[in-house]
């Protein structure tokens, strides 16, 4: 059903508007609507950002950005507090926190970079150990580590270039690091260091850049420093991480609170632009479910006493198009609302088709699949899916629908006497209703009869919908078309001998009368609608066609399993074909049944155009 909604208006002194909005936000039931500017209601406040709204947005963004940069908090010290969003001291506090976090992040990034460079350099040095060079210590030798691809020509070229720059006062040592790379250690006098770096940069050589702490040190000192830093850097990174975690455990809760408070205040500021205001009064209006009104009334009375008036009433028929829609069905029907998700929501004041979907969708599915084994298999899978909670809430709903469809398939399997086609007959299963494999025409008649009943219900719902909406002429036209179709069905049954032949003439006369009534109330289009209605009934022949295809495929699978030799291959092919049939049997009837509802059934009564209910709440 569509939950009854109320139009609610909150009227009070202008100074109380912020408090009123806070109350409504906490209550989280009212969907706000701007008051109409038709002269009978309060004028709408001029829209536009209020002073402070930009500031609130900035606070929320900065707090959220800080939260995203902080690592996961693991308890620790006492949580810190931040000033409220209205306090001017909050922004400087956030800025200080940003600075502290940035310094810690920069320190950690430097350590990681230094650790990488040291590890790479240590790798080269280890590969080239024991290290020695011929550069005079008086020339302050400078060490450059390189990683080159294994290419003797490139190495020879490098040696030649280094000699060109540094003359004889240089040393180039190389050793393979792995199958593809060679580590090279170049030692040159400090005076030539810059020229060598420029050369390496120009040629795109991957130089292992050491941190500035290594600059100007002798090779021996560099080695000692590398060894020492290799031990120290992980400890320093761990200390930086610990400091970040400490920061997170102290500040994350306060930052989350500030971000939430800023977002809530921002939402209230935005909501206030949808409220009406005069010099002295405010007006907040909107829609809410009638069942939530007592709670709001009590909360408003407790907070404002008689200073704020709460005016409520059912929405007028003219505003049904604006009223948000909430569907509410029992636990057994609610999962079938999922099938409505493919169509726009029904308009407020119209009919929720969920109960009819819950009845006819499994019925159509069972009529097509109609097999005891497939029904049991489907029910097993659906129960397993529910037990294992596959797919969360949506998965639970899908499993419930699948269970209903599987049980319908099981029921119709018993009525048709089918279990993997004719195999059921060997187990003593006899057709109770009809044998689909032989009684094609009876099956077709059954499908069309079910379609006729389905569409008849659609017409009745359409009449009820039109009467509810106050459209009497439309209701008359729909009733005339329904009775006309019933007369046509009676005449057809009389002509086929399924009803006494005496029915034929009165049925035709009644049909002509109802046709005239339909033409009179709806005009010439009524005749076209009648033809389309007959076409809609014929469309239900797909239930017979898909069902027949399913049972015939099962027959083919059994035939192959029984005749193909060797027997094992025949059995395998038969099982595979049954598996294909089962898969097709899940997809085809699911889509066909959905289509019959959307295209044929809904066309008779469904009024789309409802908007989902989006209350003004703290966590919308």
């Amino acid at each position, binding site marked *: 059903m569509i939950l009854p909604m109320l139009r609610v208006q909150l009227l009070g002194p202008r100074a109380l508007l912020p408090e009123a909005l806070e109350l409504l936000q906490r209550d989280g039931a009212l969907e706000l609507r701007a008051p109409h500017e038709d002269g009978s209601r309060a004028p709408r406040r001029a829209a536009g950002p209020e002073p402070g709204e930009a500031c609130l947005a900035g606070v929320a963004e900065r707090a959220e950005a800080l939260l995203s940069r902080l690592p996961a908090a693991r308890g620790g010290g006492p949580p810190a507090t931040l000033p409220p969003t209205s306090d001017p001291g909050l922004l400087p506090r956030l800025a200080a926190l940003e600075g502290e976090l940035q310094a810690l992040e920069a320190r950690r990034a430097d350590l990681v970079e230094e650790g990488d460079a040291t590890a790479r350099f240590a790798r080269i040095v280890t590969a080239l150990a024991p290290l020695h060079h011929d550069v005079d210590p008086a020339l302050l030798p400078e060490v450059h580590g390189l990683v080159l691809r294994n290419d003797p020509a490139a190495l020879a070229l490098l040696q030649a270039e280094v000699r060109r720059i540094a003359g004889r006062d240089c040393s180039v040592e190389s050793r393979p690091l792995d199958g593809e790379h060679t580590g090279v250690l170049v030692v040159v006098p400090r005076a030539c260091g810059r020229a060598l770096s420029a050369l390496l940069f120009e040629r795109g050589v991957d130089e292992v850049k050491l941190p500035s702490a290594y600059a100007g040190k002798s090779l021996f000192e560099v080695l000692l420093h590398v060894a020492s830093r290799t031990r120290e850097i992980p400890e320093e990174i761990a200390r930086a991480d610990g400091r970040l975690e400490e920061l997170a455990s102290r500040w994350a809760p306060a930052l989350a609170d500030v971000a939430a408070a800023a977002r809530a205040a921002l939402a209230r500021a935005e909501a206030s632009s949808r409220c009406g205001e005069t010099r002295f009064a405010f007006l907040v209006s909107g829609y809410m479910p009638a069942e939530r009104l007592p709670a709001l009334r009590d909360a408003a009375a407790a907070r404002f006493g008689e200073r704020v008036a709460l005016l409520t009433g059912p929405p007028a028929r003219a505003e049904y198009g604006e009223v948000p829609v909430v569907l509410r069905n029992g636990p057994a029907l609610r999962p079938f609302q999922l099938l409505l998700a493919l169509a726009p929501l029904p308009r407020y004041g119209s009919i929720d088709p969920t109960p009819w979907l819950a009845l006819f969708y499994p019925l159509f599915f069972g009529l097509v699949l109609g097999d005891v084994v497939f029904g049991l298999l489907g029910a097993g899978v659906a129960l397993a899916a529910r037990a294992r909670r596959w797919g969360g809430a949506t998965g639970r709903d899908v499993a419930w629908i699948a269970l209903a469809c599987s049980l319908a398939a099981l029921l119709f399997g018993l009525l048709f006497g089918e279990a993997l086609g004719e195999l059921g007959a060997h187990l003593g299963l006899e057709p109770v209703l009809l044998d689909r494999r032989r009684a094609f025409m009876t099956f077709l008649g059954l499908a069309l009869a079910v379609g006729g009943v389905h569409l008849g219900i659609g017409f009745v719902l359409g009449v009820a919908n039109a009467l509810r909406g106050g459209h009497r002429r439309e209701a008359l036209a729909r009733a005339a078309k329904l009775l006309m179709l019933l007369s046509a069905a009676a005449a057809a049954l009389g002509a086929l001998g399924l009803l006494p032949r005496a029915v034929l003439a009165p049925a035709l006369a009644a049909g002509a009368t109802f046709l005239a009534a339909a033409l009179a109330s709806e005009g010439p289009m009524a005749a076209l609608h009648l033809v389309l209605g007959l076409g809609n009934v014929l469309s239900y022949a797909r239930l017979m066609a898909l069902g027949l295809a399913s049972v015939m495929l099962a027959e083919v699978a059994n035939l192959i399993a029984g005749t193909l030799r060797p027997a094992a291959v025949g059995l395998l092919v038969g099982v595979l074909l049954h598996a294909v049939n089962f898969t097709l049997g899940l997809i085809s009837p699911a889509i066909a049944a959905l289509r019959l509802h959307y*295209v044929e059934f809904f066309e008779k009564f469904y009024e789309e155009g409802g908007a989902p209910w989006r209350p003004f709440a703290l966590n919308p």
Partner: protein
Amino acid sequence: MDKVLIAVAAALAIGISAVATAWVQSRIGSAGAGALAEKPEVRGTIIVMLAIPETLVILGFVVAVLILTGG
């Protein structure tokens, strides 16, 4: 000879309607794929629209069954 003609008639009834359905579904399918790329929320509508021309082949199938069974 009659049996051959009956079989050919039934084959034509289902075959021509199947080709018609396939052609229409190809047009709807390609247009639907384009629409889906821009508006994923119309997925349900497109699935239903894709199933609409199935009526052609279903009716062809029913006619073929009627021909074969002499109904």
